[in-house]
């Protein structure tokens, strides 16, 4: 291929402007929808990853379950508050800094001064707020004393506080949840929507001991107090620190759960890095899936190109005959028509990226939720490259058949064509 071939292709396309623009439009719509949808996917991916990172990357989460790949069907020993307490020994040599446990939360109506709010009550340890990087807006956090005395105190999430005490200072006010009367000692800073479904803004945090004594008296077979998750804060986020911490936790929990040497763990230790990786892998698939759906319209655009090229080959049969008569080889004709379809598809691809970026920018301006912020969208370089290369491939793929048909024409028959 050379400059002359490109010139021939462009002048052939320019000779039929309306037709060329309509074909272009098909490509533009296809590529624009791929770009826009993928940019939305990529934006969501970024937003979630950022939120996960905000939770701190030096925290390990432990919950019950078999690690991936395990085929053991022995019964799982549930995690208990006592397990969390046993991990305290890792603090002595600085392997870990803080340990927090949370029980399962229960959703219920919370009432105060004739107002009510739907909240989820969760028993937690005193360290829960700091380990999860939550900040107190005002008041006091839960203390070890509260835990030991099974105190009837609560720290409110910001939404709950706003629902119940729109004007008054909530501190030292009483609230009621079912048969539980609690005194408010603190209110959390607004956290925004949480990464894992539930937002801290809708929670009411009470001492885990109180929750066990008053809400659920359930005990495990071994007499322990079941909990949902243990969060462990590490001194830093280096790989070794995480590995050493995880190894220490693993050893203690395996001993406590009396797991034989050859058996798999019955708990999962997940680092935020693992979590971010797992989530972004899933979201990456989601983004690609969105792209694939949009790819259907690209396919339609490609079929449009093929259709037009077939018409063009038929219309220009005589021209092909003339070119062959003066010495054009099959390859020359093939390349001429292929360049034409690739020019259309790549031009459509570039314009489509522009349009897609505009759409994605427009979507980001639409306010969502109550914080008034739009969905983040991101037209990243990889999306642009993907769109251009897919567009070019569409041009080649759908152009090759018509081009080949042109190239194989018999010169004499082509010249006789009326």
């Amino acid at each position, binding site marked *: 291929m050379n400059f002359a071939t490109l010139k021939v292709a462009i002048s052939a396309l320019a000779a039929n402007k309306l037709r060329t623009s309509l074909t272009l439009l098909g490509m533009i719509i296809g590529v624009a929808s791929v770009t826009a949808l993928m940019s939305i996917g990529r934006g969501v991916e970024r937003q979630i990853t950022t939120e996960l990172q905000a939770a701190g990357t030096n925290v390990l989460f432990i919950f019950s379950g078999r690690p991936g790949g395990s085929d053991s069907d022995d019964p799982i020993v549930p995690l208990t508050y006592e397990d969390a307490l046993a991990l305290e020994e890792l603090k002595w040599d600085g392997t870990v800094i803080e340990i927090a446990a949370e029980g399962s939360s229960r959703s219920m109506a919370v009432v105060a001064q004739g107002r009510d709010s739907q909240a989820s009550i969760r028993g937690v340890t005193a360290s829960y707020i700091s380990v999860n990087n939550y900040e107190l807006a005002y008041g006091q956090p839960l203390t070890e004393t509260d835990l030991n005395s099974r105190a009837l105190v609560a720290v409110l999430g910001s939404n709950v506080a706003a629902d119940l005490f729109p004007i008054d200072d909530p501190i030292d006010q009483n609230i009621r949840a079912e048969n539980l009367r609690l005194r408010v000692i603190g209110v959390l800073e607004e956290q925004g929507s949480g990464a894992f479904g539930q937002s801290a803004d809708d929670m009411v945090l009470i001492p885990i001991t109180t929750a066990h004594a008053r809400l659920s008296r359930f005990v495990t077979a071994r007499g322990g107090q079941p909990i949902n998750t243990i969060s462990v804060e590490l001194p830093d986020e280096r790989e070794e620190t995480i590995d050493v911490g995880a190894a220490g936790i693993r050893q203690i929990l395996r001993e406590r759960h009396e797991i034989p040497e050859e058996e798999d763990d019955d708990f999962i230790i997940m680092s935020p890095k693992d979590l971010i990786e797992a989530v972004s892998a899933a979201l990456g698939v989601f983004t690609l899936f969105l792209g694939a759906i949009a790819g259907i319209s690209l396919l339609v655009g490609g079929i449009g190109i093929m259709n037009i090229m077939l018409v063009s080959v038929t219309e220009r049969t*005589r021209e092909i005959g003339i070119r062959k*008569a003066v010495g*054009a080889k099959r390859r020359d004709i093939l390349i001429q028509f292929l360049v034409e379809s690739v020019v259309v598809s790549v031009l459509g691809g570039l314009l489509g990226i522009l349009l897609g970026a505009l759409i994605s920018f427009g979507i980001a301006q639409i306010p969502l939720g109550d914080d008034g912020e739009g969905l983040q969208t991101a037209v990243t370089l990889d999306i642009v490259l993907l769109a251009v290369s897919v567009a070019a491939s569409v041009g080649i793929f759908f152009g090759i058949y018509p081009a080949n048909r042109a190239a194989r024409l018999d*010169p*004499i028959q082509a010249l006789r064509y009326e």
Partner: protein
Amino acid sequence: MRESVIETTDLRKTYVMGDSEIHALDGVSLHVERGELLAITGPSGSGKSTLMNILGCLDRPDAGDYLLDGEDVATLDDNRLAEIRNRKIGFVFQSFNLLPRVSALEQVELPLLYGGGNTRSHSAKRSYQGTESTLRTGNKTPELSGAQQRVAVARDLLLQRGGAEWRNRAREALVAVGLEDRMSHKPTELSGGQQQRVAIARALVTDPAIILADEPTGNLDSRTSEELMALLLRLNADRGITVVFITHEEEIARRTNRIIRMRDGRVAAEERGEMSGSALSPVGAEADRAPSGSLRRAEPSSDQRTARPASRPDEAKP
């Protein structure tokens, strides 16, 4: 003994239509010598075009041998045939067959474009020899040594003069057919006679061994036909290019070295034309007959007509 450019033996081409067979060519053996001017005549349907297309490597015979410039064409693949059409043959059609919407200059450049590397080394060969001799190299191209050729090609590549070289050669060809002031005109902006001149320039530009013309004046009025035939005859006389053309006009056919009369797919008769004496003279004599320099200077009277086609009202309309 003179060298033959075309040598066919017993060419056959049969079309099967339903259950009847049409023997478009029924054993044609033909020799054409280098520099010859040959007319083919015959009634409609006698197989003239079929023969011409095979001679032009646009079509293949069903049977028979065809040696073009010493090369056995029957055995060549499509790509080699395309190369032959490009370098050895200039084809002129009755219906002009110009590309739509393309300027005269670009029409004429087209064969050079498809000549690719070959044309480049060919052009290097030409420029090495110098422009003075280019017009007369059609007959015998002195072989350059490998080293000389490589130097010339390398120089061309270095100077990036492929495009400019093509343009110059296309201009040269258009000047030779008298269209120097119509170079940027598109086919719709040219009269029929001018369009056919562009086609002749296109056939001429690669310096082919042979020009084949299938009723080149069939679509033109008699005055324009006369001019075009004069042009073809001059190309033959001055450049020594072998010209084979089909015509229905007895008077035109006579102004050649030889006339082939076809009937029912066979050569029914062969006659000497009015020019037979001079053409069959030894090769050396030709150089004396062909004046050096441009063709237009050779025939001043026709030059005046062809140089200013716009001044002719009958030609201005298509």
